């Protein structure tokens, strides 16, 4: 049994997954309320969400949301004595997209970044493969592509834009190689502060 914790967007989403099947899930749009809702949502799951492993979204996305998810995941891992690993927002969205549209050969995943930029990464389907590394770019610098998906899909040059957001249930679609990130945040950009000695 795997507990999935997904808090990188405005959604607060948790799921229990067993052998690739979603056993239980709770999914709410909480805007900024992750720190209040997450643990009660886990408590609402069967057996209080008790699992043999924890899988958490490491980002990128909402800095605060990602930290709330990681803090909860690491604490539960410590208390239950179970391993905690992570996945990326982009891998999750790509897996969900290729599941919903099995004929797609590839796609650009684009989500909102900071300061008007977008976080982008290209994926191919069947098997799910990342074609490049995650980058933070001004939308105008993103090469045109046939299809983009994610919260910033409409802001890059693509023939088709699909709005799609993360959902913990979709973690069942991630190949094992995409579920083994260390439980460390992927922020995608450095803090804005400038040294001021």
């Amino acid at each position, binding site marked *: 049994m795997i507990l999935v914790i997904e808090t990188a967007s405005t959604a607060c989403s948790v799921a229990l997954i067993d052998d690739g099947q979603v056993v239980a899930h709770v999914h709410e749009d909480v805007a900024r309320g992750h*720190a*209040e*809702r*997450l*643990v*009660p949502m*886990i*408590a609402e799951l069967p057996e*209080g969400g008790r699992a043999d492993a924890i899988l958490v979204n490491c980002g990128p996305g909402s*800095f*605060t949301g990602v*930290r*709330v998810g*990681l*803090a*909860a*995941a*690491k*604490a*539960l*891992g*410590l*208390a*239950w004595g179970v391993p905690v690993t992570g996945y990326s927002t982009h891998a999750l969205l790509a897996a969900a997209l290729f599941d919903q549209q099995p004929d797609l050969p590839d796609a650009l995943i684009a989500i909102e970044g900071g300061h008007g930029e977008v976080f982008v990464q290209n994926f191919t389907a069947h098997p799910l493969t990342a074609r490049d590394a995650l980058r933070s770019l001004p939308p105008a610098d993103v090469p045109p592509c046939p299809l983009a998906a994610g919260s910033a899909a409409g802001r890059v040059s693509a023939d088709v834009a699909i709005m799609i957001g993360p959902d913990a249930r979709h973690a069942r679609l991630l190949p094992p190689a995409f579920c083994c990130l260390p439980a*460390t*945040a992927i*922020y995608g950009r450095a*803090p*804005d*502060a*400038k*040294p*001021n*000695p």
Partner: protein
Amino acid sequence: MALILGLESSCDETAAALVTSDRAVLAHKLATQEAAHRPFGGVVPEIAARAHVDVLALLIEQALEEAGVALKEVDAIAATAGPGLIGGVMVGLVTGKALAHAVGKPLIAVNHLEGHALSPRLADPALQFPYLLLLVSGGHCQLLFVEGVGRYRRLATTIDDAAGEAFDKTAKLLKLGFPGGPAVEAAARSGNPKAVPLPRPLVGTAEPHFSFAGLKSAVLRARDAGLYAPEDIAASFQQAVVDCLVDRTRRAIERADGATALVVAGGVAANQAIRSALETLAAGHGLPFFAPPLWLCTDNAAMIGWAGAERFALGLTDPLDVVARPRWPLDPDAETVRGAGVKA
């Protein structure tokens, strides 16, 4: 006897401690972020939040190991729920919530200021309620009449900067380093406290409050005058702060009927000049004086665990959806003070 796990992450220290209701600190693990913030001359909230989530779970694990206890033996989890830098507060509070849920033990959402306010009782069982407390830190400068756990009457606060902020800004102006408190104190040791004429804002006035913004500006002018050594400015500044704190505290003592002791707590209480001046003041009024050991003055998790133990003993626990609060006054009924804004 209750065993409490305390968690702290409201500013630039990440910490976990195991504390018992009979005042034993079984373990205390603390990671300071000083080095990460030094290039910026102050605490950067986003850098702080990132560091808290990286290290807190590890510190908890180390604290449990050092104390030789299993998480399930803990009676309650106490985590700072504010006030402070909200990104960091959330990390500690969510960690506490998840631990409390996982082991089926109560959560106690601790006001960080109550942690400071009760910390002298962890250090010394002789300290009983009610007492007069000078709470001085980087974010706060208040005189409080402490009637009991959760019962605070604010007698005075700062109308602008906190005392610790004045130390930090003075250190920055004089290029003494970060954090400013210890840097100014060290420089002041070789300086003349009478060398530089500096103001004592609000000293002798009828109103009860503190003000340090004008003092900071005077330090800037003294530096730019080019007439004084940094050590002399530091020593004169520190003396001015001591004089302000003593004058305002004396005024409060004269009005705090029934106080059984004078207590100082918070990061600035680590300053030796301030401690000894307050000790002299207390003695002059026939009051016992309490100041926690230096490690308990600066931010730490033992005081959060202790505040948790005090609240747990009274049956005060919190639900798992409790909200993290960037602002959280100890005395919510205190009247607004001119200019004080969020520091009230």
